[in-house]
């Protein structure tokens, strides 16, 4: 089935799926199909028929989704819905969990990222990640940012490294606040600054995609606003996938929103459509605060 056919089938099944699903039901894989537009024309990353298991327990059931080039896609859903797990499959972060088994096809610019010859270190340089809690290395601010470029050999001398560090800190809109204390430990910064330092660290290796797993949940509203502003600026050069529990945040920063529920991708669509006129009842119930 080609892409257009898949979209057509998804649309045709929309009404039927709507009646089949109830928030309390656990639905078998064959019984559901994602509503909306999981596939885009200009995909940076593609995931097809993804299943993820932790031991015997299935965490993700048959999810297919594209991440469009230079878009911010928000992934929302209740706790345990599989959104973080899915995000982590995109740069093989699940590889480090021994009991975790990932099935499906993943590609970055059409290139299989789970192929036998894929270097995961290189993959994670191309697909960077920012975590929920800021986790700077116990090193200086400068070293935090310089670490990645150094192990990837991106700078040939001190002057080049200085430039990368300054540029990354500027893009993360942190440079002006820390330019006089680059040799101070990164852990001494405020929470919001630490998170921006982690973003600077992630972009220092020139990734193509940045995955963010609840990057603002530990931050105050001002720091959150700065990160959101930053996400908007970063979109020009990067592709961003963000998992968030804040629906307002998803509505503010993303162009597309994907709603996950019990390991399934229920609905994907333009953020504006999802927040004003969701098509699936589960999406509607979640974003309007029904059931819980």
């Amino acid at each position, binding site marked *: 089935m080609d892409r257009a056919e898949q979209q057509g089938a998804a649309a045709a099944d929309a*009404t039927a799926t709507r009646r089949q699903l109830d928030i309390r039901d656990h639905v078998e894989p064959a019984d559901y199909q994602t509503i909306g537009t999981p596939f885009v024309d200009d995909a940076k990353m593609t995931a097809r028929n993804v299943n993820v298991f932790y031991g015997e327990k299935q965490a993700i059931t048959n999810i297919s989704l594209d991440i469009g080039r230079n878009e911010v896609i928000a992934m929302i859903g209740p706790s345990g819905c599989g959104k973080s797990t899915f995000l982590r499959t995109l740069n093989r972060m699940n590889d480090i969990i021994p009991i975790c088994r990932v099935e499906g096809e993943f590609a970055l610019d059409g290139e299989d990222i789970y192929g036998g010859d894929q270097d995961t270190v290189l993959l994670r340089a191309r697909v960077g990640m920012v975590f929920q809690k800021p986790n700077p290395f116990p090193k200086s601010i400068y070293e935090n940012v310089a670490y990645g470029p150094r192990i990837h050999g991106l700078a040939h001398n001190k002057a080049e490294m200085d430039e990368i560090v300054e540029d990354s800190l500027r893009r993360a809109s942190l440079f002006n606040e820390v330019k006089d204390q680059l040799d101070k430990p990164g852990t001494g910064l405020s929470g919001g600054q630490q998170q921006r330092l982690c973003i600077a660290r992630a972009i220092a290796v020139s990734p193509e995609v940045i995955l963010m797993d609840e990057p603002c949940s530990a931050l105050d509203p001002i720091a959150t606003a700065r990160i959101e502003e930053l996400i908007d600026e970063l979109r020009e050069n990067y592709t961003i996938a963000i998992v968030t529990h804040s*629906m*307002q945040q998803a*509505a503010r920063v993303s162009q597309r929103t994907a709603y996950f529920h019990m390991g399934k991708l229920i609905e994907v669509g333009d953020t504006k459509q999802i*927040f*004003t*006129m*969701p098509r699936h*009842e589960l*999406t*509607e*119930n979640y*974003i*309007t*605060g*029904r*059931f*819980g």
Partner: protein
Amino acid sequence: MENTLQEQHTSQRYNAELEGLRSSVLTMGGLVEQQCRQALEALVQGDEELARTVARSDHQVNEMELEISAQCTDILARRQPAARDLRMVVAIIRMVANLERIGDEAAKVGRMARKLADGRDRESYCSEPQHLGQGASDMLRGALDAFARLDVDGAVAIIARDPEIDREFKTLTRLLMTHMMEQPQRVKNMLRVNSCARAFERIGDHAVNLCEEVIYLVEGSDVRHLSIEEIRERHSSWPA
């Protein structure tokens, strides 16, 4: 997604706030509807006392408009409603503005009715807008019913009645012009009657606006400024 979903928010207080908002609009609608019927009655019966009451009663509607707007602002600020809830709050903000204008039109008819109450031969011309006024009041009632039941079919049916009201207004104007030519000494009163007819025609238009908001609320489709044919065309593509 049935009406009952209104009560299923995790936050009980949010349920109560939205339900309170909905019933406030229905109360305001009921008030305005009563005003319209009384205005028509005062005009047709020449009941000066009733006319005076209607002319003065719009302050109550104005107060309700302010109160409901404040409720909406409060919900937007504190709850950040989404999807259907958001559409409901947005639709209500626009609906109360329309209801308030209907109140103004009814009060206008009340003022005219007061001046016309002791006109000579009033029976010969004051009862002319009876049918038009009845039609406009029925449209208003239908619009409020459609809102109460979230009934899109009902809303579309009400919108379809508007051309009839418009036609009736035009016919009435022509009739009054004939009266004016025949009895030039009554021109002033004829113009007053024509203003009343105009007010009822406007009430019909506002009822249409209310119905458009009901459709937006339920279907998420903004049908303002569309013809009835275009609305029907869209309507046929909505899932039943």
